[in-house]
């Protein structure tokens, strides 16, 4: 079960107390939104979007394009994470603002930024490049935070004696990175990459198919293909695209992630062997391969030795140089002044823009946030209602969980946003209102998190406690109230926190849908943002995006943090 436990540990640092720095960061995020809207407001184009061919022979090409975007974004996320974590862990003074940056950015519903990013980028760059860039930025913002946080945490928890040993033996920074930091953080990096990668699919599918009214921001890729297929009611194309997507995701899992996970098992820090180490047939095949063995001996190892020597020389030279502290100080001051100017300027111009909103519009936004909150809560409650009993049944029964878990994992790997179009097609025909599909779409994005957390929680209940519960003849209501639910509590909280954020993200694409040239909407902040984007109503776009961000970050930092603390203090069984 350790795999699940690791995967669904909260990526967020909810243990940290809310500090004034949180407010500052939130302010900076707001300022960035304002700058984005300012830039975007010069934008008057209408966007035609690409023409997508439903011919199945183009499908592999579209899949490749999507994969390329994902890879580019992942490389960027990894680079950012490594630098961020290293800087934060080695620089104590930076910590007071670096950690809040992660916390706040992690709880911002990223999709709400998509319209602003898109409009701002298209105002600056040529349309094709701008939309590509926006999708990559969006994916990065969905991938980077948990990787960065895990890396930082690994670095911060390296035992003092190991650090002393590297210093004692005179390891230079390169060796320290290679033999201490990277191995120490490897497991966290890889596991979080797996999670981030599936997050990325979710957002890429949404970004590729993003279209509001006359503004068509779609990108050639699987996400757009699925929309066109749904739009034209071509169920054959939908099915083949979903199959291609699943094949791609499963292949990546088998050929990239699983081997990496199995390989990284050597970096476990505990000194005892694990009962069920992760395995990978592909890794075994690589290890047995003659060619790889030859390459290892003749190419990789000499290259490594050469790199080591190069780095030794390089670091011996840099150590001799005096530190340019003046330049460092100068950079620090200049960046502080720039930050200050950015905040003041964007508050000024953004504030003016917000002032044009009248009382009624503000009321609409607040009601919209409230309506979406209700929808999010409904999705959360409905998801809990089915995942708790099912998850407990699976988790408490090893026989069932042995086959149910892998199956569920494959189903869960399909990003919910890829299925949105097909969902909508079906439901709009059935009900002619978006209300039911909107909530279902939100659910489809979140219930897997909950299910896996419940399974993990149920299977982690100690056997002795289960025996005691049956010896005490706990049954029915009492069994749930006094035994199962308290045992699950930490897992439920963790799952709910992630699910909550996911549901907010979904609101942008779920509350306003253009389908077969007809716009469907339900009242909510997601619909307000989408409509504002469509009509070029920039004050409204800014106001509603800010309100959404503030509301979600506040709830996350205040309400969920409370539950998280409670679960850690009272219900954690360790």
């Amino acid at each position, binding site marked *: 079960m350790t795999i699940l436990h690791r995967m669904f540990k909260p990526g967020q640092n909810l243990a940290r107390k809310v500090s004034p720095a949180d407010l500052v960061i939130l302010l900076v995020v707001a300022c960035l939104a304002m700058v984005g809207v300012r830039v975007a407001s010069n934008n008057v184009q209408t966007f035609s979007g690409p023409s997508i061919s439903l011919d199945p022979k183009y499908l592999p090409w579209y899949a490749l394009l999507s994969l390329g975007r994902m890879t580019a974004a992942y490389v960027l996320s990894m680079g950012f994470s490594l630098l961020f974590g290293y800087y934060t862990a080695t620089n104590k003074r930076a910590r007071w603002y670096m950690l809040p940056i992660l916390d706040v950015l992690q709880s911002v519903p990223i999709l709400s930024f998509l319209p602003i990013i898109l409009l701002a980028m298209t105002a600056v760059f040529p349309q094709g490049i701008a939309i590509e860039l926006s999708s990559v930025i969006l994916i990065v913002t969905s991938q980077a935070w948990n990787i960065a946080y895990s890396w930082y945490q690994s670095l911060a928890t390296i035992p003092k004696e190991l650090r002393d*040993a590297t*210093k*004692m*033996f*005179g390891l230079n920074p390169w060796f320290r990175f290679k033999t201490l930091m990277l191995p120490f953080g490897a497991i966290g990096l890889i596991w979080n990459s797996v999670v981030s990668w599936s997050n990325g699919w979710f957002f890429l599918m949404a970004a590729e198919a993003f279209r509001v009214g006359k503004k068509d921001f779609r990108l050639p890729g699987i996400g757009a293909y699925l929309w066109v297929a749904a739009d034209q009611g071509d169920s054959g194309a939908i099915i083949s695209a979903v199959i291609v997507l699943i094949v791609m995701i499963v292949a990546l899992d088998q050929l990239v992630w699983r081997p990496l996970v199995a390989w990284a098992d050597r*970096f476990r820090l505990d000194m005892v062997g694990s009962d069920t180490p992760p395995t990978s047939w592909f890794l075994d095949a690589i290890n047995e391969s003659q060619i790889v063995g030859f390459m290892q001996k003749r190419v990789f190892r000499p290259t490594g030795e050469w790199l*080591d020597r190069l780095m030794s020389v390089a670091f011996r030279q840099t150590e001799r140089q005096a530190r340019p502290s003046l330049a460092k100080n100068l950079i620090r001051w200049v960046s502080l002044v720039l930050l200050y100017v950015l905040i003041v300027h964007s508050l000024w111009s953004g504030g003016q823009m917000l002032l044009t909103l009248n009382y009624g519009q503000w009321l609409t936004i607040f009601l919209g946030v409230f309506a979406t909150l209700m929808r999010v809560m409904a999705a959360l409650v409905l998801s809990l209602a089915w995942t708790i009993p099912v998850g407990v049944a699976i988790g408490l029964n090893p026989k069932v969980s042995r086959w149910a878990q892998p199956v569920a994992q494959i189903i869960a790997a399909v990003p919910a946003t890829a299925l949105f179009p097909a969902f909508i097609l079906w439901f709009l025909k059935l009900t002619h209102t978006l209300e039911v599909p909107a909530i279902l779409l939100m659910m489809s994005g979140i219930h897997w998190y909950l299910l896996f957390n419940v399974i993990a929680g149920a299977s982690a209940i100690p056997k002795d406690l289960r025996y005691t519960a049956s010896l005490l003849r706990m049954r029915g209501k009492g069994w749930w109230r006094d035994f199962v639910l308290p045992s699950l509590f930490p897992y439920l909280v963790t799952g709910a926190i992630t699910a909550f954020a996911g549901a907010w993200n979904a609101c942008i694409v779920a509350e306003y849908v253009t389908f077969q040239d007809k716009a469907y909407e339900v009242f909510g902040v997601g619909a307000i943002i989408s409509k504002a984007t469509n009509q070029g109503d920039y004050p409204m776009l800014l106001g509603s995006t800010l309100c959404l961000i503030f509301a979600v970050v506040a709830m996350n930092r205040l309400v969920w943090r409370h539950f998280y603390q409670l679960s850690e203090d*009272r219900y954690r069984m360790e």
Partner: protein
Amino acid sequence: MRRQQPLAEMRNVTMAYGTGTKRFVAVSNVNIRIDEGEFVALLGPSGCGKSTLLRIMTGLQNPSEGTVLYRGEPLSGVNPKATIVFQSFALFPWLTVQHNVELGLKARGVPRSERREKATALLDKVGLDGFETAYPRELSGGMRQKVGFARAMAVEPELLCLDEPFSVLDVLSAESLRDELLELWQSGTLPMKAILLVTHSIEEAIYMADRIIIMDKDPGRVIQTIKVDLPHPRSPKSTEFGALVDRIYGAMAGRTMEEIVEMGTAPGQPGRTRLLPDIELSALGIMLEHIAESGIPKVNIPDLAAELKVESNDLLKLTDAAELLGFVVVSEGDISLTELGQKYVDASITERKEIFASRIKRLPVFAWLLGMLEEEEDHRLSWDDVQDGLEHEFPSEEAERFIETVVEWGRYGELFAYDDGREIIYLEGIEDQE
């Protein structure tokens, strides 16, 4: 005889954390010299700063005051001629035994073939041939520490520092590893010029070292240096060995002072707040009963350690606590029950709690805490409030440990209650009235 230049030397070293009113002195004004060919042990109770001194000696940490000299030159940065064997081994779990040993050589740019040869030879020497490709997790504790020794010796250090390297091993492994190290050291085949061993075990220090530097805590300082002239191999059963154990116990257990000195002052008052020894409270009763049952007025502390089968470090904490509570008097390595101590032994469980409560109420730190609780309108204090009060004198980790002990003693004596969920200390009975 002309005094040779010491290999390593510490002059007036003080280590303090924080500034102003929050200044905490961990180690105060320490002078140590280590000569070539010497095996020196640094012996002291936990928390006396002996590991800190070792870090300072190797250059891992800079002292707040004073200097460290190596071969007469002041040390700046990590001393490349020194190395450490760590208590927790500090092996890299993802590197094989061979690669762990090669690590220091690799950092020095030694070519691959030479590294291999040297590591293999060293592993041979410590008796680990055949385990080159094993990972540390496959080895027993004793074997892991052998890798630690081989790794340290690979870089041919002149000064080998041992940071309690045997303390997490089981008794048998520790014993055999000690013997093997001594054998290697005395054979003269090792590159080391001197060994500095940090330990809290009196027997280990006498067994191995030529000279023992005894430290005490609050603040960490050197109290005595004892030369050990016994020939190797030393037998712990011999009378000379026993006499030395007695002598060191006598130095370390100290002598019961006047009450006012013994108890220290309240936090925030001038003078030093007495840290409470973190003992197992139930063990206190067992020790007192044992002294009472022995039937003699004065019990020898080393004998007591042997009879109770506890480590010297733990026993000294217990005698320290018993002294503080006024149950025993300690002088010259002997311990005897006071009248109160006898009363405590004869009492029932509830009476014992009452005696305990009445005794700890007299300690300034409890008086201070109870006073604050009385003053508060709702008779509650948060952990953080108490910590704030103590952080004027102690660094926050130390303060936290201190409060943990205070809470444990206070709960045991039923002076106050503690709510772990909300981290609140409150006066008993208040909660019930709500």
